[in-house]
């Protein structure tokens, strides 16, 4: 979660939001979340699991471009 926040603080183009999955279960289901942390980029499920900073950045950029 903190990496997403750091990206948002580093770029005015990026926004970051944490969502408690069980409180917002409808949204989590809509995005196909089955494990946490689950990362959704531009309203599309991207991946689940913690990754190093460099990998996180590349995956977010790839998901946004895709």
């Amino acid at each position, binding site marked *: *979660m*903190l990496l*997403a*926040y*750091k*990206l*948002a*603080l*580093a*770029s005015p*183009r*990026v*926004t*970051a*939001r*944490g*969502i*408690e*999955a*069980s*409180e*917002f279960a409808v949204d*989590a289901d809509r*995005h196909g*979340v089955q494990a*946490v*942390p*689950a*990362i*959704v*980029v*531009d*309203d599309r499920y991207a991946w689940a699991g913690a990754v190093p*900073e*460099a990998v996180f*950045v*590349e995956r*977010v*950029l790839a998901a*946004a471009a895709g």
Partner: protein
Amino acid sequence: MTLGEREQDAIRAVLDGLEREVDVKLELGPTATPVTLLAAGGREIDSNAVARDIVEAVCALSDRVSLSIIEHDEPGPWPRTTIGTGLEYLGMPAGYELTTLVHGILEAGRAAPGLGDASLERLAAIDQDVAIDVYVTPT
């Protein structure tokens, strides 16, 4: 008290690292909307009240953090905590996610982004808006 003395001491130590002031906004919904949380053993919890207790307790531990609370009459994505101008958290920042709240405030209060140079270079090249949602659980 929402936070024990050891938790308060630990959070106070983290927030001592703030390099600038941080505004935190907590938005709450109608009070009669308890949620049932599997993470809490299937108990019904008033998420607004829990979020309010936690966020108020954390923000009170640093004079560089100011808190505003907005109470909405209509159902919606509440409770919602906004840290600074762009960091949001939907739900109760309880359990492990207490760390997200505290360190989110710390990151927002840094003078410079807490990322490596390579990451900053990649982010500088972004030419479109990107919205990241991270689903988490409090345990």
